[in-house]
């Protein structure tokens, strides 16, 4: 099942202009390595679960030389690759855009923004990757983590599973912080 045009990771910086070029290049390359080491080819169907709504689309990326995978840390391929895919999905499905990266103690990886009724809203976005197996448990962990993030309008977790491949985005119920 495929909805809409393909999701092209090589356009990551067009989706998120504030993402620095050097970071985007590494993230996309690691996404390519993560997908290819799981035997996926360019154009594979990416299963998406966005706030419990199921859909899918073709995923494309600049092919990487799998021989280079040993030069990268195995876990970093999974985590950085997941960030590229999750950020692309967040833009495609919710029109969110990167503002900046946050330090880990803010309980989220990225600060994103979007427009809602003419107002700028901030999103804390925590991302994680699973090389093989189910993403369900990881999603529960990441939701609990990002729920602690403050100074944002919205908290969301994104988990990418490379085996299938699949991406799930789920939001924490919004709270209001008095400052």
């Amino acid at each position, binding site marked *: 099942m495929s909805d809409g045009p393909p999701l092209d990771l090589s356009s990551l910086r067009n989706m998120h202009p*504030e993402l*620095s070029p*050097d970071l985007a290049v590494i993230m996309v390359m690691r996404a390519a390595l993560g997908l290819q080491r799981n035997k996926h080819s360019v154009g594979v169907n990416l299963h998406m679960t966005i706030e419990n709504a199921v859909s899918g689309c073709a995923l494309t990326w600049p092919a990487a030389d799998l021989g280079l995978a040993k030069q990268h840390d195995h876990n970093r391929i999974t985590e950085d690759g997941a960030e590229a895919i999750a950020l692309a999905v967040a833009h495609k499905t919710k029109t969110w855009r990167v503002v*900046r*990266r946050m330090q880990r103690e803010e309980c989220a990886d990225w600060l994103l923004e979007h427009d809602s009724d003419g107002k700028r809203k901030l999103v804390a976005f925590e991302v994680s990757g699973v090389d093989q197996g189910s993403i369900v448990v990881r999603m529960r962990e990441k939701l609990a983590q990002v729920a602690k993030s403050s*100074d*944002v309008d919205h908290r969301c977790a994104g988990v990418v599973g490379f085996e299938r491949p699949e991406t799930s985005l789920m939001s924490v119920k919004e709270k209001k912080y008095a400052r």
Partner: protein
Amino acid sequence: MRVNTLNALVSSAIWRAEQLKDLELEEAASSAWLEVSKLEEELAKIKPAEDAEGRIARRGAVRAALKANDLARAEDLAKRFAAEGASQALRKELRELLKVESNGLSEKFPSALRHHKPSEVLRHARLLLERGPFLLAA
């Protein structure tokens, strides 16, 4: 726009510092965190403390200074941000960040902390490690 440039730079700097820390390259990670702290400080100059991004930058500047093992810088930043009109909640968060660091020191140097500021204790502890106990006789 300057804020966009700083956001891109701080994003790269944080990513790099975290990678260096994960690789356990402590000295390189310290330098990287100092760079993060300075970039967060620059963002704090542009984004007021009333703004969410301003608060994130102020916490980030102090936290990154601590991760760079520069307690004096962290203390100075926290003091400056408080004087510039940070909210009570933000001042409390910054004090908590410094307290966690001081608690680590108080476990290691309880007597020294009774007589000196945490940043001075840390400075002397580092000198002692680098130059040995004969420093004390000098």
